[in-house]
């Protein structure tokens, strides 16, 4: 009976267990969002600046990463790196894999955003005496980020969703824990999946509301 499942699936113990998973999901997401925003911006700017050799090199690595499945990168960091002596706890292995992949995705958005800025903005600033760095910080990046907010947020939403891939290395995040719970009793499947569906929806819809607010506020 499904109705029976609804009541018995959410014992205090199961709810706490799921919330713990939510904590891990949110933890991985927040740290990965921050890291990938930083590294994605740096990589995007390096590609945009067209530095001899270096930009090409970074661009090539970026291209390779973007064209791999995220799950493969997670496996790489968690299973392959220890073979060459780099041991990461499962939480941090997930963070490193997610941040690597999302940085590459965000770098493309940042590069595209920078390229959408009129060359006149650079020339005006450079002719006005600003250094290259000052031009980027005060003139170009603020204008570019304004344009980049919607694609960046949609990328961050997929980051939050993709944390569930870490169940592939048995990280006890929310989706994995829900599986543990409904494995106890098949009547739990629907209520538990519906519950985590709602949680993911609220998380990501919240993000898109922030995006809409920021877009409206800055536009």
């Amino acid at each position, binding site marked *: 009976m499904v109705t029976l499942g609804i009541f018995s699936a959410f014992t205090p113990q199961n709810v706490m267990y799921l919330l713990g998973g939510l904590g891990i999901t949110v933890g991985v997401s927040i740290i990965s969002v921050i890291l990938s925003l930083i590294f994605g911006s740096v990589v995007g700017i390096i590609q945009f600046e067209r530095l001899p050799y270096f930009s090409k090199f970074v661009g090539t690595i970026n291209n390779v990463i973007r064209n791999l499945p995220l799950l493969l990168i997670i496996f790489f960091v968690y299973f392959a790196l220890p073979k060459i002596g780099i041991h990461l706890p499962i939480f941090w292995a997930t963070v490193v894999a997610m941040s690597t992949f999302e940085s590459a995705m965000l770098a493309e958005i940042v590069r595209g955003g920078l390229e959408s800025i009129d060359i*006149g903005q650079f020339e005006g600033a*450079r002719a006005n*005496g600003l250094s290259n760095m000052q031009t980027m910080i005060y003139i170009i990046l603020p204008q570019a980020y304004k344009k980049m907010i919607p694609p960046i947020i949609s990328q961050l939403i997929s980051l939050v969703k993709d944390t569930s891939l870490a169940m592939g290395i048995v990280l006890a995040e929310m989706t994995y824990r829900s599986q543990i719970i409904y494995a106890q009793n098949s009547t739990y499947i629907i209520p538990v999946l519906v519950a985590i569906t709602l949680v993911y929806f609220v998380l990501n819809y919240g993000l898109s509301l922030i995006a809409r607010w920021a877009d409206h506020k800055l536009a």
Partner: protein
Amino acid sequence: MSMIEFKNVEKYYGNFHALKNINLKIDEGETVVLIGPSGSGKSTLIRTVNGLEEIQEGQLLVNGFDLHDPKTDMNRIRKNVGMVFQHFNLYNNKSTIENVMLAPRLVLKRDEAENKREAMALLEKVGLADKAANMPSELSGGQKQRAAIARSLAMKPKALLFDEPTSALDPEMIGDVLDVMRDIAKDSSMTMLVVTHEMSFAKAVADRVIFMADGEILEDSSTKEFFENPKEERAKQFLSQVADH
């Protein structure tokens, strides 16, 4: 002392020879107008003076520094050489007064109160005091260009470059911008190099006129001489064409 000096300067875009053996000397305080048909290299020439375009051969001395020398610090040149563009290039993310105040604050480390006072005085001078808080998108073309001129002046440059400053403006906006430029030209210490199609402005303000065609300087004469008695056939032809308008 010469403020800007070209010595045998050559500029290429790939195979295209954009500037051919340019030799030109502009003294401190001089107002020089650069004219010629489109594609003649006027804009390219003026853009080499603050390093927006690189030269491939020759020497280009600005305020005593050689721009072709890789050791020359371009930021230092640009501190002393302002530029006004055809399409204004105001900072779209900054208000009018912030456009004027930004470079003095960042580059010259000018005291904030003094910076604001000077910026307001400049906006007053170009007739935009009431637009100080507006964003560039809220200004008309003529107002944008006057704001851009105020932005350049705020750096107290020794030289100002104008790259077709009125070409993108509606006809009724041109007069105000030219008035502001005339005012600046009256300042005897300011060196001005102006690319323009406004012949009346050239006649009234320029000390000298340079005529270019196909990447070469064909004529370099005093204003009076150029308009009354042009030597080159191409210059005569050009003047008769623009005179119709």
